[in-house]
């Protein structure tokens, strides 16, 4: 029996379950907000073209529009200036093998519940590794904050001094990228960086280092509490957009069924 045959069996029996880590694409879902003199991240929009009516009697369809970075989305290396010269840095160039792989989930939900500017530090990573083992190279690392359970203004959590949401420190992201050689980093917040990430050196360290090293980002993930710390497989395949810097996508995870946990 091949591994794929086994997977098929386990999926059929429920020994392996598929978990959806994606927010619904909704016009009112928050996006990153930049100072207004910059071009903004286009919100998801949907226009009905016909609905079994005079505009098309037998069919219903919509035109949709959005940014590459709207909703649950993938960041390619070319998204950031540090990654602009990375080979295969656009979504259409990325080896599809990178879209399926193992995932480690670092639970920061308690800390994030107490501190909206909670930082993922090397110490937090070290603590996680002491319990779950060293993060394997070429795996996804997701920062669980349960932030996806927030809604409305609480999600972006914008104040006059900017957004407030958890994220990694420069040291933590350096550790993951350089020392652990991760494939990519994902969060439940609107970006891979903390809401106040522009005040670090370098600003937006996750974007800076991940993409500068040709690694990927996932943001606006939903329901990371349904993933085990280790042992799940992440499926995150962006749309194949020529020279795309990212893409909304459906992020799925294969996790052990409940009876196995």
């Amino acid at each position, binding site marked *: 029996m091949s591994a794929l045959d086994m997977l098929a069996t386990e999926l059929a029996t429920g020994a392996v379950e598929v978990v959806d880590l994606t927010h619904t694409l909704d*016009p*009112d*879902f*928050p996006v990153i*907000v930049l100072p*207004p*003199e910059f*071009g*903004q991240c286009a*919100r998801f*929009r*949907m*226009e*009905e073209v016909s609905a079994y009516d005079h505009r098309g009697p037998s069919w219903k369809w919509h035109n949709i529009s959005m940014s590459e970075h709207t909703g649950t989305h993938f960041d390619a290396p070319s998204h950031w200036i540090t990654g602009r010269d990375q080979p295969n840095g656009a979504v259409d160039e990325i080896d599809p093998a990178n879209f399926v792989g193992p995932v480690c989930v670092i639970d920061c939900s308690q800390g994030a519940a107490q501190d909206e500017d909670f930082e993922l530090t090397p110490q937090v990573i070290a603590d996680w590794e002491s319990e779950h083992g060293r993060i394997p190279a070429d795996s996804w690392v997701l920062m669980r904050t349960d932030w996806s359970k927030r*809604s*409305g*203004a609480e*999600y*972006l959590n*914008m*104040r006059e001094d900017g957004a407030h949401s958890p994220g990694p420190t420069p040291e933590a992201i350096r550790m993951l990228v350089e020392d652990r050689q991760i494939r990519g980093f994902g969060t439940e917040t609107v970006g891979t960086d903390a809401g106040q990430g522009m005040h670090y050196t370098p600003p937006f360290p996750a974007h800076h280092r991940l993409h500068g090293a040709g690694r990927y980002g996932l943001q606006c993930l939903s329901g990371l509490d349904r993933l085990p710390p280790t042992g799940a497989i992440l499926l995150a395949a962006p749309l194949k957009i020529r020279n795309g810097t990212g893409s909304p996508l459906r992020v799925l995870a294969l996790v052990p069924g409940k009876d196995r946990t």
Partner: protein
Amino acid sequence: MTEPLQPPAKKNPQLRSPLAFLPPVPRSRAALGLTARAAEGRFALQQCAECGAVQYPPRDACCKCLSTDLPWTDQPPHGELIAETTVRISPDLYFRNQSPWRMGTVRLASGVSVLCHLHGDVRKGPVRLALLLDRAGQGTIMALPEQEVPNMADDPQLRELGTSPKHRRVLITDARAANAPALVRALLDAGAAMVFVGESEGWRRWPGRAALDAMERVEIVPLDVTDSASVREAAGTLGGKTDILINNAVFLRPGGALDRSDTVFAQQELEVNYLGLMRLAQAFGPAMRARGGDGINSAAAWVNILSANALAADPTHAGYSAASAAALSLTQSLRADLRGGGVRVMTVLTGPTDDEWYAEAPPPKLAPRAVARAIVDGLERGLEEVACGDIARDLVERWRQDAKVLERELAEGAGR
């Protein structure tokens, strides 16, 4: 004595809503000059350029010297009411519903006799005249008391010729706009029964929300003019009780056409300023048109606030000028569509506003309060064309004089 207008009673749900009938629409081309002046609130008549004779009714040639040069010229809005009647029987459906209707003959100092509507407090003798749009959107003349009288605006005939917010429910589309608080206050002061204010992207906090939310007769409702579903949703909730819609949603970024290498802002400018209006029109227009005859709080007016550069582009705001021009064009079509329901469409043209996007423009700049005042005044007088502030008025005047010259003037300083 005009009786103060009482708020409307709740509707009897078993009765058919009153239909919106219009007073007689047909006019000669010359008479449409009255409509054009009424739209701006001017009292102007044709006056012969050669012999100076004032003409009325509007003509194609002077009845004194046969000159065909009859420019519309502002006239002293005064005259003497010398004959009057109360029309109790009319074959016209609109006036049948409005009867009795007072009208009379007013003699102007210029020697012309004018048949006109009469305010209830007008008696034979001196009167003030106003050129007002009727429910069909045609210019008509009304005689008003020389001096303000108690409850003057509540006169039923005068109210028919205006679009007063009193006892009406108003939707302001963008609560975040700088002019929203001033607009809300001005409308409440003018007697609006309720002011709904649209809030886009409730997930973005903004200052002033709490203050607005705390006001009586004000309700913040979700509405994003760039989102068709949101606009439809809002119309589904409020469409049947939006008597006046004020579209103050605006998006602009300074810059010439060559300043960027993309269309991101241009698209956003079209999304908000033009397509936003289209979405609102499609979602709210039909219900408003159907409620044009719905009593004291009938659907009455639609207000679009646009840059005066809709008329002639400001090359330093190229995309915004273009989007404003698109919106102005759509406003004209919308006006034609809503006219059938007796719903007025008012264009408020503004100059540079006192905000971050006109930081580099020299004063004078338009304060939110001035916009609010102009809108309420325009609604009460039932205007279609309002130029708000000195800059907009000046630009409109120059545009009228010579659009090409204005284009060249506006180009000064650009393109370097």
